[in-house]
């Protein structure tokens, strides 16, 4: 018989003993789902990675304002276009007491390339990691990669000795799950400010402060209790009832309710995720439309007509409670490569829209289906319905086909041959850099080269591809920005996409709790200060 309560009490006492003089401060928070695994290379997904930042650390990291800052590396320099030298922080301890050395960095890189790893693309940017001395490594990339320091914010450093001892030298993939390499998905040994004291996947995870952490952190939290709560209403109720210190996301419709409740408030801010509409521009005939024998979206005038028919400010006011940022660019301001001068939304002008449709030969309008997720982005289905209503005014009859994200992506994704005529999608580049946006959404789709995988409408302008290739490798910031701007100019002139807005972050916090609300929707416990 094992009494978890007693065990907990024992752990709590020891934790207190380790942090002399500090009050026990427990931070309780909830998200809508749980991290899939503790394996830091098992899944490249925002929440899982953010969750793991509590226990694992990376060479480089983002602060609360998304500035790139040193973490396990103290400094870095580019010694040749393809070689970066990273100086590792000295005196860093893993949770089991091991020291961080150059060998751990090399091991981590090799692990990201193992079969079960979901960081193979990032690991693959690197052609070699060389040990210079115990606390210095040279990282060589296959081609010049100006974004390397940003990409590395997603690669958590693991302990070579620990992994070897516990048969965890390969990342655990769903295919090999449980049969092998499972140790690292259920146990951790990071260098982060907290250790995992107890974990029941999908139920509860308890973190304890790691007393040998190298940093002098802002947070006064000594214990973290994380609970996934899937229902929005339950999550909000748990915050208002005072049981939790922070919950996210909360529906924007609930902001008033949270703010009017004693002791809680809604925390909103701009997210780096851009929401946009895409159009099938490659099929000769649309799959879901009344137009037969041709594809109206191949005509730039039709695409422009759609752009001018959608009132972004109305969507902001009516659907997003004034909290979105209407956008004319497929990039959020927080993304490296953003250009304020190019961020001009297409003007709302239904008359112009009608004229363009008439010129293109669709004066009587036509009908088509808009695919839309209903549980992926903030008010995603409502945005689609609003857009459909606006398009109806210029004679385009839009049927909104909203589905849960699993079904939606199964339908429209490239793996299913982009079975859609028009769709709503949102994008935050994992590297927080423009190159990722160009390569995934804007260049012509090339499955062999892994380009344009999320360009579901297969917009294609041959002039952009060489520019994107240069952007990927250009190290001079001014030249790079000029290239980026030229690519987005072409895209805007083509009306390749219909950008809508950057959606708001929507968290709920207890009064007195301060936290940095990062634009990538990551909760970094390092920034949490309890009253």
């Amino acid at each position: 018989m094992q009494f978890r309560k007693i065990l907990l009490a024992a752990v709590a006492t020891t934790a207190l003993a380790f942090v002399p003089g500090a009050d026990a401060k427990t931070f309780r928070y909830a998200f809508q789902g749980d991290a899939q695994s503790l394996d830091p290379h098992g899944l490249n997904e925002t929440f899982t990675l953010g969750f793991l930042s509590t226990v694992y650390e990376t060479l480089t990291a983002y602060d609360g304002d998304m500035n790139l800052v040193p973490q396990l590396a103290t400094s870095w320099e580019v010694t040749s276009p393809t070689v970066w030298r990273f100086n590792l922080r000295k005196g860093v301890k893993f949770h089991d007491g091991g020291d961080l050395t150059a060998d751990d960095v090399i091991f981590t890189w090799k692990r990201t390339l193992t079969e079960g790893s979901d960081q193979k693309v990032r690991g693959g940017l690197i052609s070699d990691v060389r040990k210079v001395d115990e606390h210095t490594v040279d990282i060589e990339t296959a081609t010049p990669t100006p974004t390397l320091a940003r990409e590395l914010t997603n690669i958590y450093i693991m302990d070579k000795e620990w992994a070897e001892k516990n048969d965890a030298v390969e990342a655990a993939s769903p295919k090999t799950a449980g049969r092998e390499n499972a140790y690292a998905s259920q146990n951790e040994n990071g260098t982060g400010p907290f250790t995992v004291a107890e974990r029941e996947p999908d139920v509860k995870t308890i973190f304890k402060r790691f007393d040998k952490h190298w940093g002098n952190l802002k947070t006064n939290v000594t214990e973290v209790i994380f609970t996934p709560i899937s229902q929005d209403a339950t999550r909000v109720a748990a915050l208002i009832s005072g049981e939790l210190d922070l919950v996210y996301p909360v529906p924007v419709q609930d902001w008033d309710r949270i703010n009017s409740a004693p002791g809680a408030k809604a925390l909103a801010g701009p997210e780096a995720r851009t929401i946009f509409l895409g159009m099938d521009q490659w099929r000769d005939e649309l799959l879901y439309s009344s137009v037969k024998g041709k594809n109206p979206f191949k005509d730039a005038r039709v695409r422009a007509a759609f752009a001018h028919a959608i009132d972004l400010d109305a969507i902001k006011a009516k659907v997003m409670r004034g909290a979105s940022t209407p956008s004319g660019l497929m990039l959020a301001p927080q993304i490296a490569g953003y250009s304020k001068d190019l961020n001009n939304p297409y003007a709302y002008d239904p008359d112009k829209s009608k004229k363009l449709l008439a010129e293109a030969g669709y004066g009587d309008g036509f009908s088509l289906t808009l695919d839309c997720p209903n549980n992926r982005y903030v008010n995603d289905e409502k945005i689609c319905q609003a857009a459909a209503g606006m398009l109806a005014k210029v004679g385009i009859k839009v049927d909104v086909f909203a589905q849960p994200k699993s079904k939606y992506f199964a339908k429209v994704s490239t793996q299913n041959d982009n079975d859609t005529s028009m769709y709503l999608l949102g994008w935050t580049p994992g590297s927080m850099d423009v190159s990722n946006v160009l390569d995934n959404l804007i260049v012509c789709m090339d499955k062999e080269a892994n380009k344009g995988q999320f360009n579901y409408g297969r917009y294609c302008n041959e002039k952009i591809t060489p520019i994107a290739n240069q952007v990927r490798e250009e190290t001079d910031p001014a030249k790079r920005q000029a290239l980026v701007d030229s690519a987005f100019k072409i895209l805007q002139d083509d009306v390749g996409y219909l950008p809508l807005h950057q959606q708001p972050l929507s968290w709920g916090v207890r009064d007195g709790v301060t936290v940095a609300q990062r634009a990538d929707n990551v909760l970094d416990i390092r920034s949490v200060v309890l009253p």
Partner: protein
Amino acid sequence: MIAFIIRRLLQSVAVMLVVGLIAFSLFRYVGNPVDNLVGQDTTLEERIALKEGLGLNDPFFVQFGRFVVNATQGDFGFSYRHRRPVEYLIAERMPATLELSAVAALMALLIGIPMGVYTGLRRDGVLSKVFMALSLIGVSLPTFLIGILLILLFGVVLRWLPTFGRGEVVDIGWWSTGLLTTSGIKALLMPAFTLALFQMTLIMRLVRSEMLEVLRTDYIKFARARGLSNRAINFGHALKNTLVPVITITGLQLGSIIAFAIITESVFQWPGMGLLFIQAISEVDIPVMAAYLCMIAFFFVVINLIVDLLYYAVDPRLRVDVGSRGGLG
């Protein structure tokens, strides 16, 4: 008797096969699990390889056949999401659901039967009218709404009870129970009541109408003529004779309680099998969905079997029947 039980168990295998078959034919429409298993930077090539590796490109009958062959060996596969064997996950979650269901069923019986008897005996009493009105609410309001209303009242406004979760649990061997801690019991109250409410009103109405029926029969009049006390008549004779349909309904409803705990569990974030199933649906975790559906089918078969056996205990006529007819159910 034994032949009867064995035959029913064999039937349960057929039922589970059919449920599995239907389930597998539906899995093609739930989405592509690969989208949930990799991040956005993963290449198309890898996605295709992963789908192939998980056997999702095989024809439907091959997938189903593989599932059946493995399941007969006690291997239900690995959860895509948790990356652990499905049977472990279900075993971990089962105590939470069974505790919730058992407490809900008990609540339904212990409150529903006395209310039914009372409303049956005092048809025109004010309290009876109140009970009947309340029971209409219980039957007609959807479970999730009742759950949310309870959370608002007892969790947010009064702050007496926790709004989510199971509280502190104590492990006894492989079973985890929340019944031994105060926070566990407090956490159990709202979900159990939410789950019980529909059954409670159903049982109450059933007992009431059966009571009204039985109280009109000749043997009750005869018992009164014999001068038996009201108590003996109402509970010894009348109530006992209303119990056969009550047992049937309660038994069948127990299966529904376990199966429909899904909604209550997701409203209260109760970490049981239903929540596991809901999460499996949203993440397209096919092995978990398949195992859960087959297990629920098995529960229903077993519960029906127990109900049939209970008839013998309650109704002596059936026992004679069985002897003469050689165990037909």
